[in-house]
């Protein structure tokens, strides 16, 4: 079978899993949904590998394959097919997506075991993976937009999965609304492309774009900026990032899925996929790169201050995606995608470890209340440290190689791109601090009461409550289940975390400067048309120098975190009081939510209220009342004729006919 056939199967299995779970939940055995969902994704992963093998059999020049099932829409000058594009980039993406998603599904089997909406959960989860696969495999803009919107819906459904929690449903709506803003950008970009080039097909667009557009022509910059709106909304970059921290309302594995595999990487993929257009619009690419830089520093500073375990990791995701966006925007496509892959490994791992810790805490997410889990949760602690090491780019881990490749590329590109490299290193330093803030808070220090209990074999069992507001909750459908699962006692969770732990440490060795360049070679057919890819090669010496700087900064950051959180734990408290303004600023996430509240939300609500009181009540109802009164006034006059006496009507009829007859008689004579 050819690579495209496997790619269709990759799409088919998650969809089938979703449908089986969604339609058969009554007749299936109670806990079958989890294994069906996991199996579907595992089969998709196997088929992704088969697609990779089939693709590697072909010569490098013949690795761009298209295939279409049927015609989606056909009209004069418009021919849209349900078509996929299978090239090294999409194969790379489906491998990462299905591989990591499979492990997250596996983890979920145990983690949500006691939840009443088990089948619904796995149905959504499979749909999410299917949407993301559709997004990365799409061969034209129409299918891309379909996948793009599906991903938005699936994230909404999963963030609001515990639908009886008010905070969860609001977070879901927030994510959906911001994603729709992004969808609008993407759709408008597609319209512009169609107007200029007359096609939605990727390959046709990429081949005609260099001839059609001059560099930095207004329209192509507009197209790229509109696409960036879409990409930034999905990838939670400034200024459209506010939904992602709130998305923590979903179950922890969902956070892992959104952050690692299926959603936030879509924007990075889009920029990499559209590189022929971005090459024609360097201004847009630069804007994107610098917004990425701003995002990564902004998110890293917030991650230093917030105390909710999942939100720290969420801000770390925003920050890491900033690196990727920076990478793919300046032409370091492979570096950006490499970081996407290693980030998927360690971020999924971090969330899984966090899930296990939160379960041990009985649902509490505040890291100030945690501590000393190293004896109570040895396995989770070890893997949390592995994830944090990779996140902090500790020498030898996957994050170490991938993050520095982006920064080395930025440095090598020269000019003002050096700023990106410098900013990136500052961010890396902050990353190491906040990554180990989590570790030192959760794993070290004095054991908290829950950890002590767990050491004696008692898993904390708190009354179910909302971690944000502290409200008491049920354990009925629409709320989290009654039981908590920790990796030490649930084998599927442990297996998933162990695999990811290995990947997070060793995933970086596929691309070590001067040693091997697996990804570079594999992705070459997709990016060879880009002069940035062809001409800019980071010399091995520079790359290792960059790695050395990165390693030193990482160690330094960890040392600082060790000093501040372990050796002198009074420092954070003192900083908190001394630099109170800065601290409040950071804890309130730079007041972005408040800004949007004042600039967008309140004016819109005020406008709505105005429309209700003035437009609706006075203007619209005034017109309606006036019209009704006019009709009623006229009808008073006519109404008298309707006496209700049948015989009077008959008289009118007969008299009328008689009068008419008389008239005609007189006229005719």
């Amino acid at each position, binding site marked *: 079978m050819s690579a495209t056939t496997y790619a269709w199967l990759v799409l088919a299995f998650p969809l089938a899993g979703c449908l089986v779970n969604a339609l058969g939940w009554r007749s299936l055995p109670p806990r079958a949904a989890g294994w069906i969902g996991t199996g579907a994704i595992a089969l998709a992963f196997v088929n992704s590998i088969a697609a990779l093998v089939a693709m590697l059999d072909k010569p490098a020049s013949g690795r761009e394959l298209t295939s279409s099932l049927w015609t989606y829409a056909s009209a004069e000058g418009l021919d849209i097919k349900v078509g996929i594009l299978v090239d090294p980039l999409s194969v790379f993406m489906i491998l990462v997506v299905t591989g990591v998603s499979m492990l997250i599904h596996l983890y979920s089997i145990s983690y949500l075991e006691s939840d009443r909406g088990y089948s619904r959960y796995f149905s959504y989860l499979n749909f999410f993976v299917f949407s993301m696969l559709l997004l990365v495999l799409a061969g034209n803009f129409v299918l891309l937009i379909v996948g793009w919107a599906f991903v938005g819906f699936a994230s909404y459904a999963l963030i609001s999965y515990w639908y009886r929690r008010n905070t969860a449903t609001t977070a879901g709506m927030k994510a959906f609304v911001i994603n729709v803003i992004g969808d609008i950008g993407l759709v408008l970009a597609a319209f512009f492309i169609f107007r200029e080039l007359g096609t939605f097909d990727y390959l046709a667009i990429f081949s005609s774009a260099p001839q059609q557009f001059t560099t930095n022509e207004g329209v192509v910059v507009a197209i790229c900026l509109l696409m960036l709106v879409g990409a930034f909304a999905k990838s939670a970059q400034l200024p459209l990032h506010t939904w992602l921290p709130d998305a923590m309302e979903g179950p922890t594995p969902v956070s892992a899925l959104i952050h690692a595999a299926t959603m936030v990487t879509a924007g990075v993929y889009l920029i990499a996929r559209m590189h022929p257009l971005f090459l024609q619009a360097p201004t847009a690419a630069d804007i994107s790169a610098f917004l990425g830089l701003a995002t990564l520093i902004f998110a890293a500073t917030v991650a230093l201050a917030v105390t909710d375990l999942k939100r720290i990791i969420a801000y770390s995701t925003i920050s890491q995606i900033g690196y990727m966006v920076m990478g793919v925007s300046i032409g370091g496509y492979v570096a950006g995608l490499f970081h996407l892959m290693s980030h998927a490994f360690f971020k999924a791992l971090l969330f899984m470890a966090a899930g296990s810790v939160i379960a041990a805490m009985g649902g509490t997410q505040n890291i100030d209340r945690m501590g000393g889990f190293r004896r109570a949760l040895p396995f989770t602690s070890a893997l949390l440290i592995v994830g944090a090491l990779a996140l902090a780019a500790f020498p030898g881990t996957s994050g170490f190689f991938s993050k520095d490749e982006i920064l080395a590329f930025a440095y090598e590109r020269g000019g003002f791109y050096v700023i990106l490299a410098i900013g990136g290193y500052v961010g890396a330093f902050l990353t190491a601090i906040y990554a180990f803030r989590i570790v030192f808070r959760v794993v070290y220090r004095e054991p908290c009461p829950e950890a002590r209990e767990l050491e004696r074999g008692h898993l904390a069992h708190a009354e179910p409550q909302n971690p944000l507001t502290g409200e008491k909750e049920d354990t009925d459908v629409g709320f989290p289940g009654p039981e908590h699962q920790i990796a030490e006692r649930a084998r599927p969770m442990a297996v998933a975390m162990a695999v990811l732990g290995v990947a997070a440490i060793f995933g970086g060795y596929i691309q070590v400067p001067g040693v091997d360049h697996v990804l570079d070679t594999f992705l070459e057919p997709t990016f060879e048309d880009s002069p940035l890819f062809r001409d800019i090669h980071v010399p091995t010496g520079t790359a290792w120098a960059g790695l050395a700087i990165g390693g030193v900064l990482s160690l330094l950051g960890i040392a600082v975190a060790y000093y501040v959180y372990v050796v002198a734990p009074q420092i954070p408290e003192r900083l908190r009081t001394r630099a109170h303004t800065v601290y409040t600023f950071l804890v309130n996430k730079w007041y972005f939510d408040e800004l949007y509240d004042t600039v967008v939300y309140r004016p819109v609500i005020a406008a709505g209220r105005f429309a209700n009181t003035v437009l609706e009540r006075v203007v619209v109802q005034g017109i309606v009342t006036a019209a009704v009164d006019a009709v009623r006034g006229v009808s008073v006059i*006519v*109404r*008298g*004729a*309707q*006496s*209700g*006496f*049948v*015989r009077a009507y*008959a*008289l009118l009829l*007969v008299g009328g006919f008689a009068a008419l007859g008389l008239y005609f008689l007189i006229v005719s004579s």
Partner: protein
Amino acid sequence: MDISWYLVLSALLFAIGAGGVLIRRSPLVILLCLELMLNAGNLALVAFARQHGDQDGQVFALIVMVVAACEVVVGLGLIVAMFRRRLPLNVDEMRDLRG
């Protein structure tokens, strides 16, 4: 052939029927008077058919009879329904459709 007497008779019958409809209050009698008017028309039709010497008018008269039969069905049905509901059998008292 001279049909003027037939027409005079027809006109008289029609006038009697119309007068009945206008004057009487009982729905049953009004229905009877309506039938009378229809039959006056029939008489005129048949007379004209005789004058012209073809069957068109007679066919038309047959159709009128069918219509009349249908009308009787509906009208009597209404009257029976009124009777069953103990409504007054007086058209002047049934004026709910007054504007």
